[in-house]
């Protein structure tokens, strides 16, 4: 397998002011230094660099490098999480600016951890990656009752719903949530993705989910495919 390398955006110098250097930011995101990232992005915004440029030329290279390493299992959750946190610090600053530019999103994704489960670490990585990929996310947080998934899906006219369960005692509620979505008549209007450490493809099949994300990278790939598939239309 090829060792992932930093993909330097082509022609970034032409899009930045004279003497500007993104290198420290690439490294900071890669190594997960969120305060440094925050300060650097703030400075970039104040220097009038466009938000899309900050995102593509400044934040993504380091993040993608770690993402590639993550999917090759060169790094694991702890380091991915640290990078995700730094990415989040940068995104928080430029998201309002990006929103003002109003690009058409890939789809609406409602995400949460099932009832009875308070864990959100994996889920927050998935959230950031989906956001980066161009999805609009409604994150319901942890310990989410099936009714709240239903409600949020209706409000957002969601394309996808994803829920994770991190405990062997809570995976049961993934099944319950799908059953409730069915009863509420929402099931066929959305694609359902599940994930979490104790889950498997077999479990996903058993409870009738549309996809199972082994990890965050896999989840994003699946979301991209599933969003293209046919569903019942929202009224």
């Amino acid at each position, binding site marked *: *397998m090829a*060792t992932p390398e930093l993909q330097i955006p082509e022609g970034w110098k032409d899009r930045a002011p004279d003497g500007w250097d993104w290198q*420290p930011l690439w*490294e*900071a995101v890669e*190594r*997960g*230094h*969120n*305060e*440094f990232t925050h*300060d650097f992005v703030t400075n970039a915004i104040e220097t009038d660099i466009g938000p899309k440029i900050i995102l593509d030329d400044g934040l993504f290279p380091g993040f993608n490098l770690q993402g590639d*390493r993550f999917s*090759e*299992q*060169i*790094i*694991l*959750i*702890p*380091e991915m*999480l*640290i990078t995700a*946190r730094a990415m989040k610090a940068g995104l928080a600053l430029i998201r309002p600016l990006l929103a003002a530019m109003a690009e058409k999103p890939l789809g609406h994704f409602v995400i949460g951890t099932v*009832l*009875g*489960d*308070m*864990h*959100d*670490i994996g889920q*927050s990585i998935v959230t950031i990656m989906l956001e980066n990929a161009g999805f609009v996310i409604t994150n319901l947080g*942890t*310990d989410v009752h099936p009714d709240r998934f239903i409600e949020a899906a209706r409000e957002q006219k969601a394309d996808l719903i994803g829920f994770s369960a991190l*405990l*062997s*005692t*809570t*995976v*049961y*509620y993934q099944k319950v949530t799908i059953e409730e979505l069915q009863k509420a008549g929402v099931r066929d209007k959305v694609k359902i993705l599940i994930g979490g450490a104790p889950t498997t493809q077999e479990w996903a099949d058993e409870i009738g989910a549309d996809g199972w994300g082994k990890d965050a990278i896999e989840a994003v790939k699946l979301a991209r495919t599933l969003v293209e598939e046919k569903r019942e239309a929202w009224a």
Partner: protein
Amino acid sequence: MDNNLTLTFVTADGDRTPVKTESGTSFLDSAREVDIDVVATCGARGKCRGCRVKVLKGSVAPPTIMDEVQLGPDEVHEGFRLACQTRIIADTEIMLAPPQTEGGHQILGGGDDASRRAGIEMGSGVEKNFVTAVIPMDEHVQSSDIEEILTATGASQSGPLSPDLLRKLPAVLRKKKGAVTVTTFNGNILDIEVGDTTEHKYGMAFDIGTTSICGSLLDLDTGEQLASVGEINPQSVYGGDLMSRLAFAQFDLGNLRKLRARAIQAVSGQIKEACEKADVAPEHIYKVVVVGNTAMHHIFLGIDPTYIGLAPYSPSIRDAVEMPARDLMLKTIPNATVCMLPIVAGFVGADAMGAILATRIFESEEIRALVDIGTNGEVIMGRKGKLMACSAPAGPALEGAQIKHGMRGAIGAIEKVYIDDDVICETIGNAPATGICGSGLIDAAANMLKSGVLQASGRLRNKDDESLPPALAARLSGSGGKAAFILVYAEDSGKDEDITLTQEDIRQLQLAKGAIYSGILMLQRIMEVSDEDLAELQLAGGFGNYINTASAVAIHLLTPLPLEKITYVGNAALMGAEMALISETERKRADGLAKEIEHVSLAARMDFQDIFIEAMGFPETKTDDPIAKTGT
């Protein structure tokens, strides 16, 4: 050569081999001259404990610095030395491979008699009275056997009497013309026996842990321990860690019954074993105090634990529970009352309550932390008047599970690792290595960090890295997620393969130690306690005793405190149960404390994720890194 001194080697079996040797020769060299095998793992450099001996007779040279480092002041004081470091100066007798004073790696019992009784008010609540009751004779007096006994003893029965007691009463009372011993617990009659049995008053304390169950048989009058027993929790076949066992019982009462039956069987078996060891009749056990984490507590009582496994993880009962042993199907001890200590909240169960009693943290003037390192770790922090607790789910990695070559602390497990230019491993029993146990894992990680094999990010260094000594670089293989570091080569191991520590193992360790450390960090943050404010950090639990504290600090499993502030308290949960067994004052105290202690739910805290990330990392060793300085 002037061989004028006699060095006598004594084996553990008592075999003696005298050797004539010259003054100034090391014990090890003397042994080798006559082909006596002494393990010297480190090559006689004083860097391991392999050649540890005990001086039985004769003068011995002052300890070297290596003796002190390897054996510690206590052992040195007791006459233990390293054979490679110690030179003969007079006729001497030494014992080869003396037993480890830590007692090897068996399941850990509670406290010793003195510390159990220190500073507590004795009084188990169990009374035995030898009386001669009047046997009802006169037809005209309205009386009964039981009324005569109550009159004779002055007891005030408030609860119901057991049917078995009533059934045997007529015969017992008349056998020796009314001479009976009446046993009461807090005033209620437990048993009535023929003749005087007041000398026999016993009780048992149990800690039902996820991994192991251990018990202790005590004399209720003196508090003296008569027997101690322990075994692996036989529920383990239904899931090694707490959550998988809860999932097994979830929504399935049949499975709950299976789990419960195994716990009851184990406890019954241990009662029998302890009674045989101490030559005590099981009928003379009157009080049993049980502690255990919330899940074990519920399962033992047969309460559905389903909802303990789901947020907000609330138990069905927190208060202390008291019931006759027969109601729990503990038929071996028909006269006993079983008392469960109260639960604090969530996963901070009756075992934590026991540890709190044992360590007296509620009496402390200074801020202390009590850390129980287990599958489900617990952290208690505070001082008199203000205590907080949280549970930290570390998972079983620290017990060797989910680690490629992981194993329990048994013969052949690597327990100590030394790294300078190359690696030296010490195993339990000095046997060829077959795997690594939790304490070895921590030691290995700490020394791999120090030597640069492992980076602060948790990544193994590349095998081509030129900054590493060649012998260490040669032990690295693979890259990325497949990287591994060889601790013991196949030819030296007890298996046909290299004993390695893989990149994935390191990640598992990070998750486990991160859980424990984030529990400590979270309570520090909430209570606004700096590292300097912590007067002491006490390590409880069977596993805590075997951890090298310097290594635990070096990998940030524990708060980086000066090592003298970190102490071992052994199986404090069981010791607390023992205290509640011999002292009703202590048992009642637990009820109050359980309500006072503030429980923090880690997962429900917004800042948990940040703290967890911080806690998962290893300390940065490089300080010349500009980004690291500005980062977190």
